[in-house]
């Protein structure tokens, strides 16, 4: 098994020392070393390590040292953040493909097994009459268990960081403290037993207590002296993290500006002779930028207001007025709630009404949605010449079925008022159960901005916007 070296994606820089998750036999030390040193065959590294074992256990010691001190992770991924964030965004590193099932040795089980086997062997040896002096063994085991317990959380921490990225903080739990305290107690007991054993077991309890007190006092003194330094270290770490977060946010915004705004500007310049297209691109870009700057982007599927704004964006992007001009919809939303089947039908009807207003009416087109505990109302208005509502032929499917029918089937009402001098207004109202309250914190004003929501991820605006799902809740892409 030798998948550790992937020449195709290996950057020219030397990857940092990491213990890779795949391709490891025990803890990934040899594999990581091979990658770091650029040795093509990981077996060679393993061989060297094994060969070093007889020389006073150097191989073993090195292995253990690296195991403890080298963080786990993908060496190639670790070498990526060296480049500035913008570049990362621009030229995305090819992903590692499908997640490989990480093969892991059950280290914990192995250790327990070895300990049990050793214990059994000792018991057998004792029974066989071999009375080797093994009194040091128990304290040593206790000590080792304590040390392993304390060190194990380091590995855990690194694993959590590797899994959740740098930004994900390790959740504050009791278990690290317990581990640390348990490890300390065990190690202390082990040391005391060892010392007691070494001095021939003749140590008086009083002396022991005295020495313990002295040791604790020394530790406390050292801690007191080292505390400022340690505090400064912690603070600097926090500062550095904050700076990095700011930096990454700035890189994000810069990348976004590059991805979308510059691109749109280039497109606009290229198509300067097409006013409709230019106006539409500018509008779409404005919407997107506003969303970036002002909106609290809501979780998909939780905000009716956001879904309505997505519908507005789709109509603005795909429809033009009677003279072929781009039309801006002035959307105002009051209140918000979690979307359900009722509001989905209302959204569909609103979309049809909006398309009618944009295509057949005259701007400005206004959209107003009011969410109250018992009902959701939508008004769509244009300033066109109006039409005779009673004179719509029964076979005209547009208004009658897609707007009125949709809402009526949900127990709602739909009225269309139209006059030559005041344009057309469609009023839709759908009852909703009051059990679902608006899912917005009262401190946040629900409609903060100008129909800014557009749930297409930042990117070139040239591709057609996908149509709203024909039935059910409108689809939302996870950002």
């Amino acid at each position, binding site marked *: 098994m030798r998948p550790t070296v992937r020449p195709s994606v290996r950057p020219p820089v030397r990857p940092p020392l990491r213990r890779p998750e795949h391709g490891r036999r025990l803890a990934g030390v040899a594999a990581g070393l091979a990658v770091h040193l650029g040795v093509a065959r990981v077996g060679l590294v393993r061989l060297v390590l094994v060969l070093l074992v007889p020389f006073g256990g150097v191989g073993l010691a090195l292995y253990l040292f690296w195991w403890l001190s080298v963080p786990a992770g993908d060496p190639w991924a670790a070498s990526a953040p060296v480049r500035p964030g913008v570049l990362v965004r621009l030229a995305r590193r090819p992903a590692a493909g499908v997640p490989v099932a990480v093969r892991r040795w059950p280290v914990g089980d192995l250790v327990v097994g070895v300990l049990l086997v050793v214990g059994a062997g000792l018991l057998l040896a004792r029974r066989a009459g071999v009375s080797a002096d093994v009194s040091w063994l128990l304290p040593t085991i206790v000590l080792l268990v304590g040390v392993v317990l304390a060190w194990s959380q380091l590995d855990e921490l690194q694993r959590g960081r590797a899994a959740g990225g740098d930004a994900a903080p390790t959740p504050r739990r009791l278990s690290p403290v317990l581990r640390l305290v348990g490890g300390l107690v065990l190690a202390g007991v082990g040391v005391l037993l060892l010392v007691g054993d070494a001095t021939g077991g003749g140590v008086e309890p009083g002396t022991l207590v005295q020495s313990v007190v002295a040791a604790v006092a020394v530790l406390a003194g050292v801690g007191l002296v080292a505390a400022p330094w340690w505090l400064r270290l912690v603070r600097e770490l926090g500062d550095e993290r904050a700076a990095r977060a700011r930096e990454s946010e700035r890189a994000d915004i810069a990348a976004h500006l590059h991805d979308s705004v510059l691109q749109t500007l280039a497109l606009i310049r290229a198509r300067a002779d097409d006013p409709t297209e230019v106006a539409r691109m500018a509008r779409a870009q404005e919407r997107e930028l*506003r969303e970036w*700057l*002002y909106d609290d982007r809501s979780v998909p599927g939780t905000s009716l207001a956001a879904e309505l704004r997505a519908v507005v964006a789709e109509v603005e992007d795909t429809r033009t007025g009677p003279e072929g001009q781009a039309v*801006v919809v*002035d959307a*105002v*939303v*009051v*209140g918000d709630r979690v979307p359900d089947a009722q509001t989905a039908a209302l959204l569909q009807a609103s979309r049809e009404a909006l398309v009618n207003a944009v295509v057949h009416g005259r701007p*400005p087109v*206004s959209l*107003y949605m*009011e969410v*109250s*505990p018992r009902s959701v109302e939508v*008004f769509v*208005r244009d300033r066109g010449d109006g039409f005779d509502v009673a004179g719509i032929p029964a076979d005209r499917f547009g208004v009658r079925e897609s707007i009125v029918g949709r809402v009526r089937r949900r127990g709602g009402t739909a009225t269309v008022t139209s006059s030559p001098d*005041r344009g057309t*207004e469609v009023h839709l109202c759908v009852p909703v159960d009051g059990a679902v309250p608006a899912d917005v914190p*009262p*401190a*946040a*004003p*629900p*409609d*903060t*901005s*100008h129909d*800014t929501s557009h749930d297409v991820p930042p990117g070139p605006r040239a591709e057609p916007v996908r149509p709203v799902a024909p039935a059910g809740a409108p689809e939302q892409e996870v950002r």
Partner: protein
Amino acid sequence: MTETRATAAPLAQDGDGVSVVLVDDHHMFRAGVRASLDDRVRVVGEAASVDEAVAVVSALRPAVVLLDVHLPGGDGGGGAEVLRRCAPLLGTTRFLALSVSDAAEDVVAVIRAGARGYVTKAIDGPALVDAVVRVAGDDAVFSPRLAGFVLDAFGTAAGDVATGDDELDRLSAREREVMRLIARGYAYKEVAAELFISVKTVETHVSAVLRKLQLSSRHELTRWAAARRLL
């Protein structure tokens, strides 16, 4: 500035059109606004920062100040800071806030600091002149968005209707009706026709709502403003 105080009034009523001071930190935008205004208004001064704005407005005492919400300088308070520092002038000079941002915190900050209205920079020339003239006549200018925010802040449930005229924390049924129509995109004239009342009455209702928005201690508004350190 003290020497200009005595001569302030004549400037504001100088014959041809409403005197206006433009406050915006973008020269291009000021030029654009200047070009889009017609002869019903007269631009008497411009300013590009908070301190400059306070000085110019105090010196010129225009009838209307077109005030950008986001301004450099001063203590970083932007348009709301200009309004606070010009508070003694609010009796004679009206402020109309103008911003590219539709964020509610911007709207409310300037309205509560004393602006008589709020329009976005997407507004076209004639509509902007209309708004300026309206504000100069001591009326309030409510865009659909501002009306939407008012409805949001004061609540739309049935129990939120004010019973007395002196109640600051709730809208009366009529005021809410007017706000809803404005939010639906109706002009004041259309609102009047729809409700069978005069345009003057609509203006009265809108001014009453503006006063409530400025003075109300309605807990949503207060908490919301406190969270953004507006108060």
